[in-house]
């Protein structure tokens, strides 16, 4: 059951025989457990439109480029990529979202615009969180928010390192966790769990493989 439940199956990496084995082991247990759990499980919460003065204001300003939703009590904006630097700046300058908690991305391999870029913001005066999401295509770039929040510097570098998303106007966009010469961006769905830059490993570590 685990196999068909995961639609965005990445192309299997060359050495991933381990994964089916693990799922095979889980399968008999799931057959027993799923039965009693199934009636108790509701259909699952769905995002509902988020209404607040803040949303009204920006809806009026940006119209269809902006969608505001609430899921499990957490608010988020799904915005058009073209609004990105403006809306982030407005949220900080006018709505007091003065703390950028995190910037991250999600890869959807089968989608046309492959990446979700997510900003998690918090406001100290309002004690409120909001997420801003936008979709971009593979190879497209996105304006950097380092000039809005200084903390974006390393966070954007990590997104670049892990997903290969370019941030325009970043002061020093280079890899942060992986070595500079590494090839590939490991958190993309088409990067296998056991995949490595073997060439880098052989040249720099003097060993055949890191496995």
């Amino acid at each position, binding site marked *: 059951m*685990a196999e068909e*439940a*995961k*639609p*965005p199956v990445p192309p299997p990496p060359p050495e991933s025989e381990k*994964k089916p084995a693990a799922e095979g082991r*889980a399968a008999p*247990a*799931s057959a*027993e*457990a*799923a039965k*009693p*759990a199934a009636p*108790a*499980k509701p*259909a*699952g*919460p769905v*995002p509902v439109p988020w209404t607040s003065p803040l949303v009204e204001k920006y809806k009026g300003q940006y119209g269809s480029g902006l969608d505001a939703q609430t*899921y*499990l009590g*957490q608010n988020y904006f799904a915005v058009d990529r073209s609004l990105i630097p403006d809306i982030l700046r407005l949220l900080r300058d006018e709505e007091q979202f*003065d*703390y*950028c*908690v*995190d910037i*991250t991305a*999600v*890869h959807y391999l089968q989608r046309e615009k492959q990446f979700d870029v*997510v900003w*998690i913001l918090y406001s*100290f005066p309002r*004690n409120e*969180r909001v*997420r801003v999401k936008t979709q971009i295509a593979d190879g497209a770039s996105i304006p950097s928010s380092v000039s809005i*929040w*200084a*903390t974006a*510097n*390393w*966070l954007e570098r990590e997104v670049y390192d*892990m997903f290969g998303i370019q941030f325009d106007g970043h002061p020093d966009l280079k*890899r*942060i*966790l*992986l*070595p500079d010469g590494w090839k590939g961006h*490991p*958190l993309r769905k088409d*990067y296998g*769990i056991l995949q490595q830059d073997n060439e880098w490993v052989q040249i720099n570590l003097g060993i055949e493989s890191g496995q």
Partner: protein
Amino acid sequence: MNDSTHDVSNRALSNLDLETPEKPYLDSNELIINMGPQHPATHGVLRVILKLDGEKVLGTECVIGYLHRGVEKIAENRTYTMFNPYVDRMDYVAAVSNGLGYCEAVEKLMNVEAPARAKYIRVILTELNRIASHQLWLGTHALDIGAMTPLFYTFRDREEILKIFEKYCGARLTTHAFRIGGCQYETYAGFEKEVKNFLTFVAPKIDEYEELLTTNRIWIERTKNVGVISALDAIALGVTGPVLRASGVKWDLRKAQPYAAYSEFDFDIPTGTNGDTYDRYLVRMAEMRQSLRIIEQAVNRIPEGPIMAKVPKIIKPPVGEIYHSIEAPKGELGYFIVSDGSTQPYRLRVRPPSFVNLQALDTMVRGLLVADVVAVIGTIDIVLGEVDR
């Protein structure tokens, strides 16, 4: 170091009349040196490239990633339950906090809530872990600065906490104490008594650490006005935890957005005023005492009842995404989880406090001396396992 000394040495060099016009460093006071990754004061494998003018720091660059294990990638290839022990390996001196954040995030995604008794057990263990983490920080930080005794004192007393962990779940460091939906283990016989004994044991010990340091002249000289960061800078840089509070921002997620059972306890948020290394020290000392207060209330009021919520054996959260964060000993530890309805997270992002706080190092050390860099790295309280993940 004042600049005149360097001018003198520079002139002495040029008097040697070396015919090396294409080597500009002879005319320059700037020197690039490398600190780490193998350096005892970097608390792991942190490499800092320092740009110096004599002994004065002009700028720094952190090179991190030596401990990168791809925790977020591993998460996408494990079930929710299987990934639980991995989170302990990030901030391994506060493994219980990591586990709490992860379990609560998944619970939120599944829309279940841990029972009251489990929440109390979680609070007690997490606060014990906060004390242990601060003790380890204090011992190593003081050792970096040259005070050796606190290391022995804090490790001696931290041992008592680890003993409680070991009795509770069998592990001392990477505890894997909690499960999605509650706790795996009921408290052992005598747990409450042992925790209470620990409280009476450790309260005077914290005074003892303070006796050694708070009014110690060398300690004050090495920490006062060192590594100052203003509240505005700290917020812009996303700094959280004791570092933010020492700059005067009274913000603690346990109060601001209470999780577990924290809303039921009475405690204060200690803050500093100067945002320097000394204030951060005082804030952490006060936090240990506040943790004792929380544990005392929790252990006296611990309710009876189940310790696990009704959670299916196979954890399959509905399609959706969630961000949940807790106040870890180092700051805001957050989990952003995207579920596609399967047994494995589609994407799991960890918002690590050490990683974000470390970014403030450059702001904090500019204009200081090399020896102060050691003090500032210590005072940020990083764990490289969490910085690199």
